[in-house]
């Protein structure tokens, strides 16, 4: 390296050396690790500056998204709210609550899905397994009731493990919520025909679906398939009582 300085390295890399000088430089490069490292450093600096000194609208947009997400997930500075605003807010909440209660009073006998259909997707995953991430993401969307996003994730998962009763069960439920009733019921029936822990949960959900459709007869048929010692037995009994 002693024979060459930074400007020589720049001249070489930028093609400003005469052929003979260039040849000597390349010979030195082969014999001098420090010189080779200095050249690599220059290339790295050039690449970094070329990339990062230019405007990056994509990065600006991402930073904006991050700023928007931040307050919802990390602590915020408390704000002083006037008592007038507070009372207005309380009044608004009370009005909404009254409306909801009134609605529930008139609909509680028929809105079975609201009473019994609050199902959370729970996954037990082994960290590091490639498929875990799909299940975790599916669970996230499922529990947020964003069912359209659940289905493709579970479709992908089922391609790697077509025997997963858990994936079939949750995909079935998600499908019934997105208008794909036939395929949803088909998934749930497959689960019921199997011997997994979801067997009677699937039967219950099919019954619930029919109850919600006011098809009480079909709902009762499915409820009767749930034995008294099944985990879903208690809610099956409650739903059956509501159907009378």
């Amino acid at each position, binding site marked *: 390296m002693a024979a060459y*300085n*930074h*400007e020589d*390295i*720049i*001249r070489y890399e*930028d093609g*400003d050396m005469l052929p003979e000088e260039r040849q000597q430089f390349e010979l030195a490069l082969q014999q001098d690790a420090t010189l080779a490292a*200095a050249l690599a*450093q*220059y290339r*790295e*600096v*050039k*690449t*970094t*500056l*070329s*990339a*990062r*000194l*230019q405007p*990056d609208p*994509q*990065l600006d*947009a*991402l*930073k904006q*998204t*991050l700023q*928007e*997400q*931040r307050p*919802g*997930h*990390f*602590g915020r500075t408390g704000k002083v709210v006037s008592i007038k605003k507070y009372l207005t807010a309380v009044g608004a909440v009370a009005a909404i609550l009254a409306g909801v209660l009134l609605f529930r009073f008139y609909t509680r006998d028929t809105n079975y899905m609201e009473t019994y259909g609050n199902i959370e997707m729970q996954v037990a995953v082994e*960290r*590091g397994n*490639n*498929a*875990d*991430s*799909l299940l*975790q*993401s599916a669970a*996230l969307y499922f529990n947020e009731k964003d069912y359209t*996003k659940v289905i493709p994730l579970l479709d*992908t998962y089922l391609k790697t493990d077509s025997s997963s009763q858990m994936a079939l069960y949750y995909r079935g439920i998600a499908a019934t919520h997105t208008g794909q009733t036939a395929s949803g019921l088909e998934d749930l029936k497959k689960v019921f025909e199997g011997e997994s822990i979801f067997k009677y949960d699937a039967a219950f959900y099919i019954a619930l679906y029919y109850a919600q459709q006011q098809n009480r007869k079909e709902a009762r048929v499915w409820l009767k398939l749930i034995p008294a010692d099944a985990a879903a037995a208690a809610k099956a009994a409650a739903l059956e009582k509501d159907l009378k």
Partner: protein
Amino acid sequence: MSIHPDQRYLDGLLRNDTLLVQEIYQRFAGKIKHHILQHQGTEDDAADIFQEAIIDVYNQAKYKQLQLTCPFEPFFLLICKRKWLNEIKKRGRQPVTKRLDDVYEVGEDVFAAAEQVLKNEAQAGMILTQFERLGEKCREILRLSLTGEAQEKIAAAMGVTYGYLRKKKSECMATLLSYIQAQKI
């Protein structure tokens, strides 16, 4: 090595997929907040570290074509934790002698991928810091020279001769390289 399905996180960051960014926050923000609060930090610290880690991953995906061959979660959490450890050291505090992977046992592939991101980003950060030490004229010459535009055109735009631009560019770059060299000693 095959690409992990979690590559979708990197692809999502590159196209600023807001739902995917939301998913990253929903899945991991709580874990990082907990970790940083347990290790001498505040919620603001946690939010900053989380945001910086996402940008680091974006930069590596964009400029180094980073492709994920390991799961995203342990990879991302390790980056956040390492960044926080560095920050504690920078603030002159004594980091608690606790293993970084106290929440997750991380595999070698995860560790290597996270380390690479941190190393590359530290290197890029150092180069940019040294660049900022240059005089305004040097910064302008280098900034314009590295756009890929024809040098003759840049010289004309700057109102200087082509020969002057080349000479100054070489001098400025040599100065920058000497600053960077000094950082390594």
